[in-house]
């Protein structure tokens, strides 16, 4: 283990390895979202995939963790944990670079109106007027920290501290696909119609999952996104376009 990695563990107690269900292990690089931990999780998953261990059935990342599911007849939890610790010790994952080939997306978004009825409520929870909220969110260049919850669905951040608003205690019965929602300093863009505790502040026409396509998923972890304001009429005209008017450029 490098001296830097050792000092990180001594200072923060991370990374930690915990179990998920009966056949999963989770390597977490922090207990709250932060830039180095997110980068470490993405980089460690890439290393794990590269290692090609025989009994690993699936890997993924969440915001600050790398997950693996393994065959229970392959090795014991203790043995897999030891293998993970050995891989962890090969470099300082907190200083690993972001994935290559990232993009910047500009996504037309209708804020508020009957298309996104919780803008006022969310703005108020953040101590802002609706106008201030639109100004802030629409100019925040947010990064895809992870894809999860459902298909191709990004968690994006990080928003300023006053957006650390809780999720609702009662779920909203459904938000539509393309809904832009907010809670706990993050934006989530929904790929399917679903119940949620996140507040619905904007609406886009971007289809995040296209099962008929060779590249069924649009966004990748590490991509950056700007949710640029548009009118309901303009959005309506984009409904036939799977990109919903969104355009992307390569990030150098």
């Amino acid at each position, binding site marked *: 283990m490098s001296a830097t990695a050792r000092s990180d563990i001594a200072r923060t107690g991370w990374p930690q390895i915990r*179990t998920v*269900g*009966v056949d999963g292990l989770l390597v977490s690089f922090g207990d709250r979202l932060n830039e180095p931990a997110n980068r470490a999780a993405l980089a460690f*998953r890439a290393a794990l995939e590269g290692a090609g261990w025989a009994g690993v059935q699936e890997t993924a990342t969440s915001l600050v963790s790398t997950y693996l599911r393994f065959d229970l007849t392959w090795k014991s939890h203790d043995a897999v944990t030891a293998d993970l610790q050995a891989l962890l010790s090969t470099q300082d994952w907190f200083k690993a670079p972001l994935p290559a080939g990232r993009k910047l997306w500009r996504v037309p978004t209708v804020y508020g109106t009957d298309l996104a009825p919780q803008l006022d409520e969310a703005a108020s929870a953040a101590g802002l007027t609706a106008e201030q909220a639109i100004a802030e969110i629409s100019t925040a260049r947010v990064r895809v920290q992870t*894809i*999860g919850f459902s298909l191709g669905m990004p968690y994006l951040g990080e928003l300023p501290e006053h957006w650390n608003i*809780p*999720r*609702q205690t009662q779920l909203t019965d459904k938000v539509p696909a393309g809904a832009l929602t907010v809670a706990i300093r993050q934006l989530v863009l929904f790929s399917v119609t679903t119940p949620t505790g996140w507040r619905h502040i904007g609406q886009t026409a971007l289809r995040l999952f296209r099962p008929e396509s060779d590249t069924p998923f649009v966004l990748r972890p590490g991509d950056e996104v700007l949710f640029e304001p548009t009118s309901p009429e303009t959005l309506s005209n984009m409904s036939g376009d799977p990109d919903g008017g969104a355009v992307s450029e390569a990030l150098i």
Partner: protein
Amino acid sequence: MTRALILRKAGPGVTVQDTGRPGYLAFGLSRGGAADRLALAEGAALLGQDTGFAALEMAGAGGEFEATDDMRIALTGAVMRAHIDGTAIQWNAIHRLPIGARLTIGAATRGVYGYLHVGGGVQTQPKLGARSAHLAAGIDAPLTPGTHLPIGPDSKAAPVGLRLTPEPRLDGGLIRVVPSLQTNVFAPAERDRFEATTFRRDARGNRMGARILPDGQGFHTETGLTVLSEVIVPGDIQITGDGTPFILLSECQTTGGYPRIGSVLPCDLPRVVQAAPGATFRFQFLLLEDAVAVETAEAQRRARLHTTVEPLIRNPHDIADLLAYQLIDGATAGDDLERA
């Protein structure tokens, strides 16, 4: 000639299911697949074919089916009333479905998800490596009347008239769980109360998850609702804001920020999905090493299921039109000479 099973009538939740599509978790797609994986294994054992073959999952009710060729069918999972051309047939058994005959499968009398397996398997076009409909993801949809399902080749000599005794799982009961990464955000007293509480299956539920109602108050963490979104696996018991547990199932989301008090052993998930609204549950925490032993033993039992298949002995009570059967070989109505 392509063999097909034609759907003439369909209940609202008839879908093609197999063991699901691993490998897309990083893009937010859960594995999906049959809600009751044991039922899939039982069908495969009866027909003597691979567990990976796709079958029809019937949520709550079946439908009417017609074969374009002689086929073998197996019925597993939730018990439903089934007939071939009006004659009652047994559940948890294989039968011959002759070309042109009408198979009718009614509403579930016990359990929730029934399965119709066909010798040769349902051979629809795979999507992203599997044939399973993933309703939450919008990958395929419940089947509609008129659908022709391609069926793979089956040995003409393959047996019918076999049955097996299913693992009892249709009426709720004891569910074994392991602590998961967020179990510790619940105070020990709250975890004890979780184990001591009787739960009732709520009517709200689908392939994503099942809501269960405690007989007392809901469950709460010391940290409140704002926990970091983290990886979810099927079986995780999520506590939503009002304190009500939700057991996440085959089509669950892949990450989420509601705290989870524990995770149901995969081998006990069929018991969760097959419990009809009103069925009751208790939960028991196992140590991880004990859970691994239970899972491993269960996997071995599943692999040996084909050795438990036995000849089907007809119970006369199950035969709706007993008189239609020629019970004694050579017996006649006694008017042959008059008719001849």
